[in-house]
C-alpha cells in the first residue's frame, strides 16, 4: 500500500526547488568529501549537501521528518564526488515526496555502486588524463605558463561543472527513476570516446613534453626516447606490482646519492 502510494507520488511532475535552495545544495556539493573517512565514506557529505532541501519538509528544521531524514542520509554512502549530485538530488526528491524510509534505504544502497563506477571510468580514468595530456602537449609545443594552466583548468572544469550541475538537476527531476539517466549514451560511450582521444593525445604530448624538458640542443634525445619506450613497456608489463612514482623515487634517491657522494 505504502509502496503503491509512493509510486503514485513519483508520477506527479516534481515541483522545482526554490532557486536559493538549489544554489545552496550546488555550492555544498563542492565540499561533499569534506569529512571523507574509511567508516562512512561520503555519507556525512550527502546529508550535509541535502540539508537545505530537507528544511522544506513539513515542520521545517524543528520537525521530526527533518531529523529522521538527516539521520538516514548521514550513514555510509559511496559515489564518485562529481556524481554525488545525482544521489543528493534523487534522495532529496524522495524525502520531499514522502517515499517510505525502507524504500529510500534500498534505493540508497543500490545507487552508490553505479555512481562510483560511472564516475571513475568517465572522470578519473578518461577526462582527467585527457585534460592533463592536452596541457602537457601545449607545454611541449612551447606554450607559456598562463596558457598551459588556462587550457588545463578551462577544459577540465567545463566537464567538471557540467557534471555537477547535470547530476543535481537530473537527480531532483527524476527522483527514484534516476537510473534511466545513468543509461544515457554519453555516460555509456563517453569513456570509450574520451579514452581513444586521450590515447592519441598521449602519443603526441609525451614526446613533445619530453623534448621541451630536454631543452635546447636535444642532448641525448634519441637515447632518452629509447629509454622511455623501453621503460614504458617494462612498466606497463610489470606496473601492476610497481607504482611508477615509487620507482622514480627510488631511482632518484640512487642518482642523487651517486651525484653528490662521488
Amino acid at each position, binding site marked *: 500500500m505504502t509502496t503503491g502510494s509512493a509510486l503514485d507520488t513519483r508520477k506527479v511532475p516534481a515541483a522545482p526547488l526554490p532557486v536559493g535552495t538549489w544554489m545552496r545544495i550546488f555550492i555544498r556539493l563542492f565540499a561533499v568529501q569534506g569529512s571523507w573517512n574509511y567508516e562512512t565514506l561520503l555519507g556525512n557529505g550527502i546529508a550535509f549537501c541535502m540539508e537545505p532541501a530537507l528544511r522544506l519538509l513539513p515542520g521545517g528544521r524543528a520537525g521530526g521528518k527533518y531529523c529522521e531524514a*538527516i539521520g538516514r542520509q548521514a550513514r555510509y554512502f559511496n559515489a564518485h564526488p562529481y556524481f554525488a549530485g545525482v544521489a543528493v538530488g534523487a534522495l532529496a526528491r524522495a524525502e520531499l515526496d514522502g517515499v517510505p524510509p525502507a524504500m529510500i534505504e534500498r534505493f540508497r544502497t543500490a545507487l552508490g555502486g553505479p555512481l562510483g563506477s560511472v564516475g571513475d571510468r568517465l572522470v578519473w580514468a578518461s577526462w582527467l588524463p585527457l585534460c592533463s595530456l592536452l596541457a602537457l602537449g601545449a607545454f611541449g609545443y612551447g606554450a607559456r605558463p598562463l596558457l598551459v594552466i588556462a587550457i588545463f583548468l578551462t577544459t577540465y572544469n567545463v566537464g567538471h561543472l557540467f557534471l555537477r550541475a547535470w547530476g543535481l538537476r537530473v537527480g531532483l527531476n527524476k527522483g527514484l527513476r534516476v537510473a534511466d539517466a545513468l543509461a544515457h549514451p554519453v555516460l555509456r560511450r563517453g569513456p570509450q570516446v574520451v579514452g581513444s582521444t586521450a590515447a592519441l593525445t598521449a602519443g603526441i604530448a609525451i614526446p613533445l613534453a619530453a623534448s621541451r624538458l630536454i631543452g635546447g640542443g636535444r642532448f641525448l634525445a634519441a637515447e632518452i626516447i629509447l629509454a622511455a619506450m623501453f621503460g*614504458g613497456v617494462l612498466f606497463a608489463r610489470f*606496473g601492476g606490482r610497481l607504482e611508477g612514482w615509487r620507482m622514480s623515487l627510488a631511482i632518484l634517491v640512487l642518482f642523487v646519492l651517486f651525484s653528490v657522494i662521488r
Partner: protein
Amino acid sequence: MIFLDILPIVILGAVLGMDVVTFPQAMISRPIVAATAAGAFIGNAPAGLVMGAILELLALEMLPFGASRYPEWGSASVVGGALYAARWEDRPGALAVSLLAALVTAMVSGWSMVKLRRLNASRAAALRDRLDSGSADAVIGLQLFGLTADLFRGGAVTFVAMLVFTPLVPALVARWATDERYSRAAVVAVVAAVASGAVWKIFHSVSNARLLFVAGLVIGAILVVAR
C-alpha cells in the same frame, strides 16, 4: 629563510592540498597548475611549469579512485615548484634534487591524508548517536572539522617540507658532480617512461587505444623534428 618568506607558499600548499579531495576538487591541485603557481609566487613561473610538467607526467599514473591510497600531489607540487623556481634553475642537479623533494613530500602528504581520514572516522564514531538522531549541527560540524583539518594538514606538510628542503636542496646542489645535461636527461627519461607505461595501463581496455597511441607517437615525433 624566515617564516614570513615561506608563508605565501605554505598558504598555497594548504589551499591546493585541500583541493585534492575535500574542496573544491577543481584540479587546481594538479602538478602542472600547482607547481606553476608556486613558481609564479617565487617570481619564476616558467621554472615552476617545468617542474609541474615533470610531476604531471608522473601523476598521470595515479587515478584517485575512492578509498585507494595515493601520493598527494597538490602540496607536493607547490613544494617542488617553489624549490626549483627559487634560484637554482640553471644549476646542475637542481631539477633532480627538487623533484626528489617533491616526491618525498607527496609520499608524506599521502600518508597524512590517510591519518586525516582515520581522524574523521573517529570523530564520526564519537558523534554517531547525534548523527543517527538527525542532528544537523553534528553533520555540519563534522563536515567543517574535516575541511579545516585538511586545510591545516596541507599547510603543515608544506611548512615542514619547506623547512627541511629549503636548506637541503642548495646544499646537495652545491656538491653535485654530474653534468647538468646528463642529470636532466636522466630525469626526463624516467618520467617519460612512467608516463608512457601509465598511458598504456590506463587505456588498455579502450579499443584501438594502442594503435592510436602509436599513431600519436608518430605525429608527436614529426612535430618534434619539424620544430
